[in-house]
């Protein structure tokens, strides 16, 4: 069994029209499908049907997260091992999520739902799949971005969920932060060669801290920060800045429902044998100092206190 990729996140939004405008014109994604209550988006340089779904709702936050597996038989296996672990599961039929084949949805101890599937429709690059031109056009005035990179979610006991993902689903844990008593207060997990696909930190169960988009170069993070400011998009007080952890140049901002987004560039990669990358650890002082925000060497309390 192998979980191979973070494929998409599905978000709740309180105003579908405003959210559509945001993910198109501020983030720079292309719309790939629309239903009465949903809009699907993909970046210019990803081939699958979508990387973000927004769902009209009475709330903000995360609906579920989609991961692709390497073989159709993995779906049954994930259902079995998750149920053996005591987690709730439910079957997802093909097409229930547009562009996605059958899968199994599991509820993590953290309260988040993950959908594991094998098939995703291929819609191709924005520039096509035959002799594509190498420079992508702007999407609604914003540079195209590379891909959905990761998300940070919150829960009461990060260690419990990280342990399940590592020991049962073979996710690689790249970095953790520990309290003085040794308990894990935050952890970064990946299924690829990036530093993280899904990270967990303390907070309410089922909470969403942010979803992050990878942009092509560090200078584009600066250009995008300029655009965010000129368009009056709410941003974090810190940022443009750099994270000590991962080393990315980063800016945080909010969609019109209050879901936090991030543009980032420069994360280190973890090539090598999957699941054999040695763990990096942090203590609280470093996490809340240069590990968190490298330039400011402090973390604005609101950064961890506010989640959707």
């Amino acid at each position, binding site marked *: 069994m192998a979980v191979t990729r973070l494929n998409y996140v599905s978000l709740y939004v309180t105003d579908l029209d405003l959210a559509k405008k945001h993910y198109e014109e501020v983030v720079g994604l292309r719309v790939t499908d629309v239903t009465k209550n949903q809009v699907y988006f993909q970046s210019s340089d990803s081939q699958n049907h979508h990387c973000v779904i927004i769902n009209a709702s009475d709330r903000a936050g995360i609906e579920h997260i989609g991961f692709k597996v390497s073989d159709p038989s993995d779906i049954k296996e994930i259902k079995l091992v998750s149920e053996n672990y005591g987690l709730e599961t439910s079957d997802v039929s093909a097409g229930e999520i547009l562009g996605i084949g059958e899968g199994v949805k599991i509820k993590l101890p953290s309260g988040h739902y993950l959908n594991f599937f094998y098939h995703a429709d291929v819609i191709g690059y924005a520039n096509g799949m035959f002799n594509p031109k190498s420079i992508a056009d702007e999407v609604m005035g914003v540079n195209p971005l590379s891909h959905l990179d990761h998300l940070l979610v919150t829960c009461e006991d990060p260690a419990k969920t990280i342990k399940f993902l590592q020991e049962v689903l073979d996710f690689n844990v790249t970095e953790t932060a520990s309290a003085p008593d040794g308990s894990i207060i935050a952890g970064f997990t990946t299924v690829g060669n990036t530093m993280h696909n899904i990270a967990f930190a303390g907070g309410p169960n089922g909470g969403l801290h942010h979803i992050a988009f990878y942009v092509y170069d560090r200078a584009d993070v600066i250009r995008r920060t300029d655009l965010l400011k000129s368009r009056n998009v709410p941003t974090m007080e810190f940022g443009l800045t750099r994270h000590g952890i991962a080393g990315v140049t980063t800016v945080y901002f909010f*969609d019109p*429902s*209050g879901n936090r987004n991030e543009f980032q560039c420069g994360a280190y990669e973890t090539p090598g044998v999957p699941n054999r990358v040695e763990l990096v650890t942090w203590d609280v002082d470093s996490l809340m100092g240069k590990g968190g925000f490298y330039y400011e060497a402090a973390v604005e309390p609101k950064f961890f206190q506010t989640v959707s």
Partner: protein
Amino acid sequence: MTSTYQVTIRAEDGQEISSQVSTSETIMNAFDKQGYALHASCKSGGCGACVAQILTGQFQYLLPMSANKLERVSDGAVFLCRATPQSNLMIQAPKKWIVKKGSMFSDALRDI
């Protein structure tokens, strides 16, 4: 019909600021125009950073407010980035505002 009400915000230290707030705008916007940046983060009704407590008066939400946040607070809580007054209001704010205008340096800088 648009009406206007007097909204007063009291900080923990007892200091108060007031503004006339129209029912066509949010309390946060009205104070922002007066030069007061209230404690907030997403300013979009999703994160909960701007939560405060109603001492007296009525309000309603002018814009969508995430049920995730409404379900987690007790009666009398108000999220200032989305709320508009329905009467004169007295509000207790757990976090102090920042004065943006009228001084050489902002309050944020003065604390350093």
